[in-house]
């Protein structure tokens, strides 16, 4: 099992708090919305996390003003 950070794009408003809390995982795009660093395709919507980033990710989930973030477990393919 691997934990992923899911971004609900329909809720996110791009103020960028998550990128501040997870600077190693998320960058910001031209308009402020989060971009997963070094990821391609749908891994930019369901972002695989390293264990070291879990705590900060949990904090981002709680603090995101739009409740746009969630953590979930996916089987490693």
């Amino acid at each position: 099992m691997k934990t992923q950070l899911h971004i609900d794009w329909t809720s996110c408003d791009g103020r960028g708090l998550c990128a501040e809390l997870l600077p190693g995982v998320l960058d910001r795009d031209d308009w402020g919305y989060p971009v997963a660093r070094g990821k391609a395709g749908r891994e930019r919507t369901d972002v695989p996390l390293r264990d070291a980033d879990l705590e900060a990710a949990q904090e981002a989930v709680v603090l995101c003003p739009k409740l746009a973030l969630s953590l979930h477990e996916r089987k490693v393919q």
Partner: protein
Amino acid sequence: MSQANDTYPPVPMQEGTRQEPRLLAAGPDAGWAQHLDTFGTWEPHTAGPGLLEELAAAGLTGRGGAAFETWRKATAAAGSGRKGMFPGRPVVVANGAEGEQLSFKDRTLLAHAPHLVLDGLMALAEALGGASTYVYAPAAGLPRVQQAISERPRGKRIRLVQSPETFISGESSAVVNMIAHGSAVPTDQRRRLSESGLNGRPTLVVNVETLAQVALIARYGAPWFRHAGTPTDPGTRLVSVSGPAPARDVVLEVPGGAQLSAVLEEAGMDPAALSAVLVGGYHGRWVRPAGHALSPVGPPARTARPGAGVIHALDLQACGIQATARMVSYLADQSARQCGPCMFGLPAMASVLNRIAGGETNHRLASELDRLGKLVTGRGACRHPEGTTGLVSSALEVFAPDFRAHLSGYCTGPGGAAA
């Protein structure tokens, strides 16, 4: 002449072609009697779980765009219906929304062979242990479906829902959202629809042509289905073919793995008189008319993914950059404006492309277009951003000489004619 014949492209007679008509074999505007006459009597409600195995053996893939294996999708929904804390009765939706302006094969099929679609819908619902059934289609198609339902001894419980005429209205989560809440925009998919769709029930959204294929496979079996097409792309598919005048819009049924050039010829076009062909629609890609087979699998250099079956040809005099710029402007306009990267990124891409098309000579524009495409990809509730990027990057590739010419201050038609 029936109304359907006046409203929809004619059913091709397919003289002199290699593919015998299957889906449209009952002829134009087929009613219940004609349907039974052509395909034989068969009770879709007798279909059981064995149908899913038959679909697996047939190797049927979705005809609505994603080309996902139908049996896998159905098995996932069947599995979710059985487990979980509140096992819900599954839902099957026949999806007849083709938001794409260049697509007309689904409305043609619904107009001429509605009973085949309903057979497939009912059979699949039975195979899932008695799922609820819906038909989702544009306003113009619904009366014919309603009429077909009333002609049948069974099927009264099938519900009809009207789809709006927007590009994104046929996206699976938008379909479910429309049925549930009357809003045909995609929703965030933390959970798959096959796990939790309409009212939390396992939901299967299936293209209408795919369902018609299911009906044929249920009747005649997988080996019959595989008799057409290739081992990796078995069966037939409907394609909506359009191109420069005098070619008329036409729906053709072609075998899997068909050569694009043969399909163009069958539609009355000379491949040598075309500069490029859009395969798979606005979320598809531009290819050269020669040397490509239509197939969801295979190397990109020799195959073009048919997607929802859209084939649109561009003549030698037309400017591919201008054509693509118009399409991307439309796609940007059709963003459901819910997701930031799509809402801002697509108009930004359209604007750069329009500047190139309009003759701005700034060599950085092409790389900016490429950068924006890479930036939006994978970052939306639906695949609209990556679909749009795919179209743009194919244009950058196929029309590369034209891009260079544009950025140096010329618009050179692919045939050498200055525009």
